[in-house]
């Protein structure tokens, strides 16, 4: 047999730790491990390397919407059964008359035509926005860092943000995390900076756990701006920043 000695089997331990042995070799190693403490120690070392490799992957930001999708899949939406109203004899007799039926059918056709036209326009508009939104959330985010180091020493408590944008579009999606919950009378305001001039990108508030989201509709394409900053402003926003930047970065 090819693997009949400790040195020969010891050479297979690294590949065994990674699950890279083919069936027969794997069985030979498993059998050998039962009686060889040295190979078990060696295997433990290689498994520690394998465990560390789990954390060696480049970190990527998961797309938005996964949590909402997961929640939907956990609790299928309950659809309440419509309860039909009890029929009324007099009205039924009236409705059964041919002239009434023809008139009603005509009215329904006209209403359907108008509603179809109305909704098709609405849907087309919505589809455009959904398509733009879809492109945004699949774009690589620009990371927005805190302006100052967090003083509590816990990195997860530091405020940060992600800006999803397309350079040629005026639309961008801003998500922020770990920002302080503001009292009534204050709001966060986004500033888009172009040649040193600041233009408002919109107002938003955050939830009690510091999460906030804003669809920015910029006055000009995003590629026109060099930087983005977020400040705390009085409710209703300001014409120019009145407090230090909370998070921001080059965009």
């Amino acid at each position, binding site marked *: 047999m090819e693997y009949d000695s400790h040195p020969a089997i010891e050479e297979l331990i690294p590949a065994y730790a990674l699950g890279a042995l083919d069936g027969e070799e794997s069985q030979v190693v498993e059998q050998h491990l039962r009686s060889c403490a040295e190979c078990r120690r060696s295997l433990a070392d290689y498994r520690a390397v394998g465990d560390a490799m789990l954390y060696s992957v480049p*970190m990527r930001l998961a*797309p938005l919407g996964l949590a909402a999708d997961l929640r939907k899949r956990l609790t299928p939406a309950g659809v309440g059964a419509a309860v039909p109203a009890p029929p009324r004899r007099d009205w039924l007799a009236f409705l059964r008359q041919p002239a009434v039926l023809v008139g009603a059918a005509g009215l329904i056709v006209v209403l359907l035509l108008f509603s179809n036209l109305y909704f098709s326009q609405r849907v087309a508009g919505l589809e455009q926005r959904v398509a733009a939104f879809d492109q945004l959330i699949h774009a690589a985010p620009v990371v927005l860092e805190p302006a100052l180091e967090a003083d509590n020493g816990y990195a997860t408590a530091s405020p940060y943000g992600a800006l999803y944008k397309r350079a040629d579009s005026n639309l961008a999606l801003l998500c922020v995390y770990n920002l302080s919950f503001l009292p009534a009378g204050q709001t966060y305001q986004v500033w888009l900076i172009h040649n040193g001039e600041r233009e408002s990108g919109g107002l938003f508030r955050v939830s009690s756990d510091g999460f906030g989201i804003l669809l920015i509709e910029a006055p000009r394409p995003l590629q026109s701006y060099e930087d983005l900053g977020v400040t705390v402003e009085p409710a209703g926003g300001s014409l120019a920043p009145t407090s230090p930047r909370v998070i921001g970065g080059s965009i």
Partner: protein
Amino acid sequence: MSSFDPDDSVLLQRVARGDDDALLALHKRYVNLVYSMAWRVLNDGGMAEEVTQDIFLKLWQKGHRYDPRRGRFTTWLLSVTRFAAIDRLRSEGRQPAIVDPPAGEENEELPATWIPATEHASWEEGQHLRLLLEQLPVEQRQIVELAYFGGLTHSELADHLGLPLGTVKGRLRLGLEKLRQLWLDKAGI
């Protein structure tokens, strides 16, 4: 010493009782880690999303199978993700990708603030290991990564790379031996 994070423990117990808020809390905490692992194996954002969601659904249905005495929750979670992504790769009939080191490529990497503070030490160790991997000769590094992230055995690696089986075995063994030695040197053992 148990490195099992007590907050995870509490959340997992709640998940086992059918508390969907607890599952969503775990999702918020670990979704980036899980997605990153799935992305690394599949090299495809869409499939990585699907595997990520499947992992959390599996946690919802079978999370009680996790035994904290057998290791850290995140190590278990990432292992399950790696195997699920490798299964998906196979079911799609796709070949694992050879991924070059990040330097010089389009870099979407994120700072450590995107992962829970409790995982920073492990993440830093992993990133250090990635640097050690880059010290290996390229032919050894590629084989180690294909075996680990692609789930390929010796014979599958030989087919995939068009190399003799003996060459593959030698490169994988040498690469892993060197990596282990660098790892132990770093740990001062």
